């Protein structure tokens, strides 16, 4: 076996599991990175944080009703409580003098605390719903779920659900691209066209809740924020065009998922954490070498400028 072959197959040697983990990582990272672009541009980066933490009481509540961790009701309950927190934030900051950042701080922490309370009081240690999983998720658990036969392979169910949500997100972004762009750039103009920016806001929040909820199990409540913001921020540093920014963010999602697999097989660590660390590495590269305003070009410009002035000094 050649070295290249060894490198390429290393994460997938032995069983199909490596492939499932990679596909799962990508299907979580992709919709997050695309939605993250719009969050970043709308200066709502921390809304993802709020939603991801507030889904917990929804999940627990739904679990208490149906007593089944793989029930789709958990997704629905979680998405509803994610949407609920965005309404709560709007309510606090429009109806009181408290500003939006404080409103976010109040809303999600309280809902998260409520969720933690509910886990410890009603759920206990009998299930997967423990606090570790809530914080960083556990990608490798997807193989313990039921699987569906597809193309002669047993595909884990969570993977299919995740790709369903990814497809939905892509369709949403394709259809609403103009609406999202215009409402992010100039909500006033959009309102003057007779389209209510509030409706667009809640539509985006609904899709975001769904995405955050499906990624909850794989990456947890905290790391999902990194998946929303880091690809978007890296892409933002590299381009001045929105469509290019979305493509770059998607590429970032793919690259960090692949990199995470190598980190995982080398150290047998949490895949989600590896993905975030790899993502940050890519962000640093964008920061240094980004074609638009990478540090390297700034340094080079400053050096050239200094040289020119030096020469001018000597001449004069």
């Amino acid at each position: 076996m050649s070295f290249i072959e060894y490198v390429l197959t290393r994460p997938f040697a032995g069983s199909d599991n490596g492939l499932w983990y990679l596909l799962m990582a990508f299907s979580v990272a992709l919709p997050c990175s695309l939605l993250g672009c719009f969050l970043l541009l709308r200066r709502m980066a921390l809304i993802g944080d709020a939603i991801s933490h507030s889904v917990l009481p929804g999940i627990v509540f739904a679990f208490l009703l149906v007593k089944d961790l793989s029930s789709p009701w958990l997704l629905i309950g979680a998405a509803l409580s994610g949407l609920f927190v965005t309404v709560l934030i709007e309510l606090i900051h429009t109806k009181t003098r408290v500003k939006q950042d404080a409103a976010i701080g109040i809303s999600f922490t309280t809902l998260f605390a409520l969720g933690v309370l509910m886990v410890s009081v009603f759920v206990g240690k009998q299930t997967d719903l423990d606090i570790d999983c809530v914080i960083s998720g556990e990608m490798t658990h997807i193989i313990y779920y039921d699987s569906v036969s597809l193309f002669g392979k047993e595909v884990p169910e969570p993977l299919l659900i995740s790709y369903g949500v990814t497809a939905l997100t892509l369709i949403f972004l394709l259809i609403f691209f103009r609406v999202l762009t215009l409402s992010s750039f100039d909500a006033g103009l959009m309102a003057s066209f007779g389209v209510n920016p509030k409706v667009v806001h809640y539509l985006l929040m609904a899709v975001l809740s769904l995405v955050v909820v499906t990624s909850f199990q794989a990456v947890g409540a905290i790391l999902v924020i990194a998946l929303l913001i880091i690809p978007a921020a890296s892409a933002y540093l590299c381009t001045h065009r929105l469509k290019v920014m979305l493509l770059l963010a998607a590429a970032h999602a793919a690259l960090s998922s692949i990199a995470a697999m190598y980190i995982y097989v080398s150290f047998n660590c949490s895949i989600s954490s590896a993905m975030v660390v790899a993502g940050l590495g890519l962000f640093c590269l964008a920061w240094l070498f980004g074609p638009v305003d990478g540090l390297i070009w700034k340094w080079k410009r400053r050096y050239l400028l200094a040289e020119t002035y030096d020469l001018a000094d000597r001449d004069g």
Partner: protein
Amino acid sequence: MSTALETHDLTVTYDKKPVLYGIDLEIPQGQLVGIIGPNGAGKSTFIKSVMGVLPVTGGWVKVFGEPLAKNITRVGYVPQRGSVDWDFPVTVMDVALQGTYGKLGMFRRVGKKERKIASEALDKVGMLDYAKRQIGNLSGGQQQRVFLARAIAQDCDLYFMDEPFVGVDAATESAIITLLQEMRAKGKTVVVVHHDLQTAPEYFDMLMLLNMRLVAFGPTSEVFTKEILQKTYGGKLTILSEIATEAAKNDLTKTHSKTP
């Protein structure tokens, strides 16, 4: 002359505090109208509420004799330049194209026709050479020109502009006023929030003096007077007396020149 904009008892409140009370107004077509008044007088609020960007608490608005929703594509809004993020990853062309979305809708594809409209609009404000630039690299005056190009691309009959002269260079200011005059020549009506009392009588056919209530509305020569300005601004403006003398002079010259 038919009416471009009519408001009746228009009232807007913010957090239960009234910002605008009972504005009754009829703006005839083909006029350049300036809205002037002190800070916090509700100038921006007035145009935002008329455009449906802010909710109206009471009263009604009619545009060309019908509710706004019926004529929404005939009305254009140019927000304050500072209200958008100029680091946003869009090009000058993208912004000009936004003007065509009013008629095109939010889902249909941009075609050759729209690109032509946007290019012509950019050409008109002297920004076509910058079409592919990201908007963050523009000067204040250039940004305002791009906003105007977007307004031209909207091709409306009635425009509301929020402080288009703020922070622009002299060349842009005169370019804007020429543009507004061209619009008027085509029978369009333009309502402009304006903060500079020095230039107000020179630029506008009619003035709307606002301080939470409508203090006065009428042809500039009739309403740009010492008493009305004092009523609008109260005693707090120190340059007011200066302006008032200007106004008085204006009055004199106007009465002289207008006598047949």
